[in-house]
C-alpha cells in the first residue's frame, strides 16, 4: 500500500495520527422495505447492506467492486449520510459521526462525485455558482469563494476565464465531471467518495480524468473511496480493494494481491469475466452462470453458495466471516478458507493456498 502523503503529517485537521483510520465502519446495515407485496402479509425487505465493516486508511485509495445490487452504492450513500443506516457506526478519524462529530462538520470533510455528471449539477446555476455554493453555505465570503472557485477550475484543467460563467449544458461530459470534482473539493474535504465517477465517460476522456484524480490526490493529500464496476480501472487506481456480494463483503485486501491471486471464489469468477484483450485467448466458458440474485431473499449461509463451484452442504448453513488464510493474503469470507469449518477444502489448509481459479473451471483447464 502506498504511504500517506507528507501533507497529512502537517494537516491541522488530523486528530488520530497516521495510524488512525480515516474512516471506520462497524456493522453497517440498511434494509429497504418493499412496498405493496401481499394484501395482509408484510412486504419483504431488500437487504441492501447487511453487516458491512471496513476501514479506510489515511491517504489510501480503497476500491469497491461488485455486481449490480451488491450494495456498493448504498454503502457510499450511507457513508455520506444521504440515507440513514438501520444499524452500525461510522467513525471519522476517531470521532463517532453524529455524536462526537456534528454531521455538518463531517459532511464538509467527506464529499462525493456521482456517475451522472449532468444530473448532479444544477442546470440553472453557472459552473462558478455551483462551485461556490457549498463554501458560501459554510460561511465563506463571496469574493473569497469566487477566488477559490477560479483556483479549483484551473486545478481541474478548465480555464476559469472561459468556463466560470458557463452553464452545465454548454460543457462536454468530461468537462462536467471535472466541474463536479472541483465542486467536491471546494470545502477542502479529506475523503472523496467516487461512485462510478468515470464510468459514463468516453475512453479517451476517462484516461484524462483518471490522471487528474491521481494528481489531485497527491496535491491535496486526499483519501479516495473508488467505486466502479470496471475492474481494470480499479486495479489501476487502488491500494486496497473490497469485493462486495449481495450486501456483504466477500473479500478485502491489498489490490495487487487480490488481483494477482484472489482468495474468494467470487472474486476469481469476477476477474475471469473481464474481456481478455487478446483475440487468441478469448473466453471459452462463462465463469458464472445466471444473473446476480435478488437481495430481497438472499440465500442462507454463504450468499454466494448457489453460484459457487466450490459449494458444499455446509455453505448453505454457516455464514462465513472475513478471515485471512495466511499472513499477507487478503481477507475472504469463504468457508473453504476457514480451518475446521467443515468444508472439505478447509482440511488442506496447512498446505499452500489452493489454486482456486483452476478449481473453478475444471473443464476449461482440463
Amino acid at each position, binding site marked *: 500500500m502506498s504511504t500517506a502523503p507528507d501533507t497529512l503529517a502537517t494537516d491541522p485537521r488530523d486528530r488520530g495520527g497516521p495510524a488512525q483510520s480515516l474512516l471506520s465502519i462497524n456493522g453497517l446495515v440498511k434494509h429497504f422495505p418493499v412496498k405493496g407485496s401481499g394484501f395482509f402479509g408484510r412486504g419483504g425487505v431488500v437487504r441492501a447492506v447487511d453487516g458491512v465493516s471496513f476501514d479506510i486508511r489515511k491517504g489510501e485509495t480503497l476500491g469497491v467492486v461488485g455486481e449490480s445490487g451488491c450494495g456498493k452504492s448504498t454503502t457510499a450513500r450511507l457513508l455520506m449520510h444521504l440515507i440513514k443506516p438501520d444499524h452500525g457506526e461510522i467513525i471519522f478519524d476517531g470521532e463517532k459521526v453524529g455524536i462526537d462529530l456534528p454531521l455538518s462538520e463531517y459532511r464538509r470533510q467527506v464529499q462525493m462525485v456521482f456517475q451522472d455528471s449532468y444530473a448532479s449539477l444544477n442546470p440553472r446555476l453557472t459552473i462558478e455558482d455551483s462551485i461556490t455554493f457549498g463554501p458560501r453555505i459554510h460561511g465563506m465570503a463571496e469574493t473569497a469563494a469566487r477566488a477559490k472557485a477560479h483556483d479549483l477550475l484551473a486545478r481541474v484543467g478548465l480555464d476559469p476565464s472561459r468556463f466560470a460563467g458557463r452553464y452545465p449544458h454548454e460543457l462536454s461530459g468530461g468537462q462536467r465531471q471535472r466541474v463536479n470534482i472541483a465542486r467536491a473539493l471546494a470545502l477542502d474535504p479529506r475523503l472523496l467518495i467516487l461512485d462510478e465517477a468515470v464510468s459514463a465517460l468516453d475512453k479517451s476522456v*476517462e484516461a484524462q480524468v483518471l490522471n487528474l484524480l*491521481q494528481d489531485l490526490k497527491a496535491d491535496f493529500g486526499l483519501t479516495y473511496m473508488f467505486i466502479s464496476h470496471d475492474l481494470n480501472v480499479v486495479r*489501476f487506481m*487502488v491500494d486496497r480493494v473490497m469485493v462486495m456480494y449481495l450486501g456483504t463483503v466477500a473479500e478485502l485486501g491489498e489490490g495487487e494481491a487480490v488481483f494477482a491471486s484472489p482468495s474468494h471464489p467470487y472474486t476469481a469468477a469476477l476477474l475471469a469475466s473481464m474481456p481478455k*484483450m487478446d483475440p487468441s485467448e478469448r473466453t471459452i*466458458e*462463462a465463469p458464472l452462470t445466471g*444473473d*446476480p440474485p435478488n437481495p430481497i431473499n438472499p440465500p442462507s449461509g454463504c450468499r454466494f453458495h448457489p453460484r459457487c463451484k466450490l459449494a458444499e452442504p455446509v455453505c448453505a448453513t454457516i455464514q462465513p466471516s472475513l478471515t485471512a488464510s495466511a499472513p499477507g493474503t487478503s481477507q475472504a469470507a469463504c468457508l473453504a478458507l476457514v480451518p475446521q469449518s467443515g468444508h472439505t477444502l478447509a482440511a488442506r489448509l496447512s498446505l499452500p493456498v489452493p489454486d482456486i481459479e483452476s478449481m473453478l473451471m475444471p473443464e476449461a483447464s482440463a
Partner: protein
Amino acid sequence: MSNLVSIEGLTVTFTGRGKPVRAVDHVSLEVEKGSVLVLLGESGSGKSVTLRSLLRLHPEKTSKVSGRIIVDGHDIMALSKTGIGDVRGRTVSMIFQEPMLALDPVYTLGQQITETILRHENVTPEQAHARALELFEKVQIPSPERRLNAYPHEMSGGMRQRAMIALALACRPKVLLADEPTTALDATVQIQILLLLRALQRELGLSIVFVTHDIGVAVEIADKIAVMYAGRIVESGSVADILHTPRHPYTQGLLASRVERAKKGDRLKTIPGSPPDLTALPPGCAFAPRCDKTTAACREQVPSLVTGAYDHAVACIHA
C-alpha cells in the same frame, strides 16, 4: 467469400433543429457471410447511426441519407414501405442496449415472438408457439415454457437480453445488428451474452454487425473491427491487426490510454481534448486538432481510407 452486407458512400445528415449534423460521412464497408464486424467508436462517432441505416430506421422528415446499402441482394434505400417491412426481422434484425425499452411491456414475451413469426411466415399459431419455445431453449433461458408467459418486467436484465435475442432470431435472419447489447449488463452477465452470440453466430451462420465503445468487448466477439471517429471510418482490419499493429493515431492513442496496459500509479497516456462537435468539423482530418502528427496537409483535405496488406485500411496521410 461473398459479402452479405455492402455499404457504399453512406452519408447521413440530420436536419431536425438548428445546424444540420452530418453524423455519418461517406462510410463504406462490407460484411462477409458468417462473420462479425465490430464498429468501434466513442459517443458521436456515428457507429449507431450507421447501424440504424441498415434497417432504414431514421425518420425520413428530419434526416437526409445518401449512398447505397445492399443487404442480401436488397437495395435498402430503394425499397417500398412494405418492402422494407419484409426485410426487417426477416433478413436483418436488431438487438438493442436496453431490452426494457425495446420490448413491449404489455405483451408477454411469447406473444411478441409469435406475432413476429406470424407477420413474416405462413404458419399456424401453434407452429409459431413451438418455434418460440425452441428459440428460448436456443438462447439458454431456464424453464423456457414458463418464461414465454412472462412479461418483460418479470425478468432480470440478462434474461431480458436473451429474450430479445430470441425475438430477433425469430424469423431466421441472415444479419443481426447489435447496438451495445452488453453495455448495461454486469461483467459476469456480459461475458455470458457475448459467448451466446458467438455460439449462435457459428451455429446459424449469422453475420453480425456489433456496435460498441469497449475494445475489450470488441476483442471477445469481432472478426473484423472498423474504428469510427466523427462519422468516418478511420481504420479497419482484423481484430489482431487493429489490436497489435494499429496504424491510425486515434486507434493508437485509444489503445495506449487503456488502463489494462498500465501499471498501478503510472500516468496514463492520453489523447488531449475531447471528441469534436459534429456541427463544426474542421475541413481536413477530423482528428487533426487532437493529433500529435498533424501537419498543414492534414488540415486541408479529408484523408481517404487506403487499404493495405491483409485488408488493413487506414485513413491517415502519415500512416
